[in-house]
Structures are given as C-alpha cells and as structure tokens.
C-alpha cells in the first residue's frame, strides 16, 4: 500500500504545506495590515468557486478569476484609504458570501458544502490538492524572494519607494494577487476560517519575537507548520473538527508568544504597532 493512500498521511502532508505557505504570506499580511482584505478574499472567491463547480469548470480557475477582480478592486480603492475603503471591503464580504451561499443553496445537499467552505475538510484532501498546494508554495516563495526588497520598501514607505524608482502601485498589486493565490489554493482544502487563522496568527506571533524580516518569516513558517501538526494530532486524539483544532493551536501559540516575549524582553516590541510614538 502506497504511503499516500492513507488519508491521515495526506492530511499531515497538507497541513505542513499549508502551514508553510500561510506563514510565508502571513508576514506580509500582518505587516501591511491586510487581515481584513484576506478575510474578504476568502469570502469573495467563494461564488467563483461555486459557480465553477456548477458549470463544471476547474474550481481553482473560478476562484482565481473572482479573486483577481476583488484584488484589483482593492488596489484601486486602496489609493484612497479611509472609511470608504473599509466599507467597500465589508461590502465585498457580505456580497460574496451571500452570492456564494445563495448559489450553493440552489443545489441540493448544500449544507455539507457550505460547512466545508467554512471549516474545510482537511481529512479528505486528494493527492491533486497536495500537488496544487506544493506548486503554490514554490511559486509564492519565489515571488516573495524575488520581490523581497521592493515589497519591503513599498510596505514601509510608499512615497520613498516611488522616489527610489520602484513602481509602488505595481508591487502592491503583485502582493495582493499573491495573497489571492494563497487564499484560492488553501480555502478549498482547509476552509475560510482556518485559512485566515493560519495566515494571521503565526505571523503575528512571529512579529512579537523579532523586528527582522528574515527572522519573522522563518518563525512564522515554523509556527504555521507546528500549528498544523499540533492541531491535527489534537483533532485525532479528541475527535474534534481538524480545522478548528488547528486554529485553536495557532491561537495558543500566539497567546503564549504574547506572554513569553513580554517576559523575555521586559515589554512589548517598541517599533511597529506601538500606539504611542512621540511626535
């Protein structure tokens, strides 16, 4: 019997890949404050996935198409940060979710599909899902590596980056589309809630330990993989939904990091995210 024939083995491989992929992109999401955008993407790609399934096209294709529209829309709106941008992202969540759920509900037996959209079904990943995740991991790692400097520069100081000759707007779009690729890859296997949790929590935990991008990235990937493996173990041990237990493991790592990093340093990080910068 092939090692890959065991559902638990496939699930283990999938959480390792997804944990690494989410941790990698999560650093950008946390530093750029794109959590809400990520949440909106998970919901807004939903109708694309459902529509693709109904008309019989590849579901990844449907997700990518719907997500690309949203990512470009946000890039256009993002130029004018403010109330309208926050609200527009919210409208996307509401509209995407309602459209997707409405489409699903026209089909029979939809309860199952809906709940797997939310919390995933990691124990039923196919070898093909694994392959897609692995390819996405390689592609995303390559993009982030190639774009490391411009992404850092545009994220920290858009005006300065533009002055230095980087096309800040173009790099923003590259980043949003990369996040979209991750969301589209990950959501069908692990669900929206887990996708968001694995993107945000490990990177937020890593951020507490260091101010250096390379260290944060390495830690985020490690935390992501650990959350996946730990959650999967807890799930099989206590017979609870795998997606939920992975999410809670990631949250526990973040909570522990918050307490421990404070003990180690005496207090929280001084730079990013500190509300009280003297002026």
């Amino acid at each position, binding site marked *: 019997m092939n090692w890959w024939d065991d559902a638990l083995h496939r699930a283990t491989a999938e959480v390792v890949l997804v944990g690494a992929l989410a941790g990698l992109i999560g650093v950008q999401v946390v530093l750029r404050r794109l959590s809400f955008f990520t949440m909106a993407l998970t919901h807004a790609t939903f109708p694309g996935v459902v529509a693709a399934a109904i008309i019989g096209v590849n579901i990844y294709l449907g997700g990518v198409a719907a997500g690309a529209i949203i990512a470009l829309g946000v890039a256009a709106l993002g130029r004018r940060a403010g*109330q309208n941008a926050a609200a527009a992202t919210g409208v996307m969540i509401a509209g995407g979710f309602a459209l997707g759920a409405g489409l699903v509900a026209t089909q029979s037996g939809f309860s199952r599909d809906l709940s797997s959209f939310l919390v995933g079904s990691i124990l039923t990943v196919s070898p093909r899902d694994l392959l897609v995740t692995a390819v996405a991991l390689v592609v995303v790692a390559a993009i982030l590596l190639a774009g490391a400097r411009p992404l850092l520069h545009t994220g920290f100081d858009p005006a300065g980056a533009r002055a230095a000759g980087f096309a800040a707007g173009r790099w923003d779009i590259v980043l949003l589309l990369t996040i979209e690729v991750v969301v589209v890859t990950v959501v069908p296997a692990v669900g929206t809630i887990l996708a968001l949790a694995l993107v945000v929590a490990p990177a937020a935990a890593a951020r507490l330990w260091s101010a250096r991008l390379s260290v944060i990235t390495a830690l985020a990937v490690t935390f992501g993989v650990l959350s996946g493996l730990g959650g999967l173990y807890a799930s099989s041990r206590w017979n609870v939904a795998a997606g939920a237990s992975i999410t809670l493991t990631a949250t526990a790592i973040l909570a522990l990091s918050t307490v421990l990093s404070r003990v180690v340093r005496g207090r929280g990080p001084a730079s990013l995210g500190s509300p009280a910068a*003297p*002026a």
Partner: protein
Amino acid sequence: MGDAALRYAGVSLGYHGTPVLTDVELTLAGGQRLALVGPNGAGKSTLIKSVLGLVPVLGGTATVLGGAPAGARHRTGYVPQTGSLDADFPVTAAQVVMMGRYRRIGWWRPTRAVDRRAVREALDRVGLADRAGTHFGILSGGQRQRVLLARALAAEPELLLLDEPFNGVDAVSQEAVVRVLRELGAAGTALVLSTHDLTVARELADQVCLLNGRQWAIGPPAAALTGDILRRAYGGHAVDVGDGRTVLVEP
C-alpha cells in the same frame, strides 16, 4: 487669581516609563502666549499632550489651572493638527464647532439656542460664518484649521493649546488665526502653541520654550532664541546667515 495657568517644575515626560522630554521648567500666567519651538520629534506634541493629561508625568510636578492636568480638561481647549483628521468624514463645519460644546451640553440634553449662538459666533470670529453648512472635507487646509480653532473657542477655554497651527496654512488663514490668538490673549486666555517656525514664535509669543529632548531655554523670544542657544539645541541644523541671524535647516 493667584494660580498660574501652567506651572511645570522639573518635569520629565514619556511613554512606557521611557522619558522623551526632560527638565521642563515653566510658568505661564493668564493672558500670556507661550511658543514651543524645536525640530520634529523634539517633544512639542508630548508637552502639549501632557497638559491634557494624555502623557504621563514621570518626574517633577505639573500643575494645570491650579490642579492635576487631567482634571483641567473641561477648562482647556485643544486644536489638533488638521493633517491628523479624516477629510472624508461626513460632518459639516458647524457640527465640528459644536463638538466644542459637547462637554457642556452633556450626554442627554438637546443642543440649546445658547449653544447654537456660541457656534455661530465662533465661526464668525474666524471669518467662516458663511461656511457653517459646508462639508468639512471640502474646506481648504487653512479653513479647516480655522474651524478647529472655532471649535476650541466655542468651548470658552481658560487655556488654549494649539499643535502646529500654521502647518500648511494659507496667508489669509494664518492672519485670521494670529488675530484671534492676540484677541484671546488680551481677554485673559493663556495660550500654548507649538511651531517650528521661529518667525511666528518671535512675533506672537511672550515666552518661548526651546525643546529638543529636553528644555534648552525659556524666556522672551529675544533671550531664548539667540544663535548660540539655537546652535546648541539643533546641533548641525542651525546655520548662521550673518546679521546676527540664524536659520534652521530641517534634515
């Protein structure tokens, strides 16, 4: 009337227990105008926020209108930098000015004729009576600054704090603001304003407080803003241009 509007003795200020501004020694009487001068990050905003009780006093004693800073907020007016506000926010100029009356109106009571009159008068004083119903975001930077000044006026404060009131402000607005500030001083209101414009400080202030991480000088403009002191406070950013004048080169 023995109480000074502001009395700081050996005060150090900071966040999370780390001081960002030390050795502040100053006394401001009613009707006096104090200018806080220093480069970006010198601690001007920190000092202003400490008067409002929004930055903890780490050492020394700070007295505002005869009591602890936070206790004097309802007698203090504050004009923030316009750049920190959201231009898209759906409020009219009159609504912004009315905010200055909110503490008097309380939580439940509807606005009364006296509040509406105070708003009208405040807008009139800054020369914007005709823009009462205009969306705040449509106004120019200088007009926004005047609306915020009107908001502080509507609160009828004994002590008025202004954070960089002349940043990005057109000449007409600057003139209107300066005129109102002089009137207020004459009427007995104490003023504290931060600026990095030495000319404004010299023309407007009775006292100048030179800050850069600590207090470098305090006194009348002629005594506090000498080339020698400026060079020491600003380091390499102060340059002599002859005629006994010193100009500052912002990095």
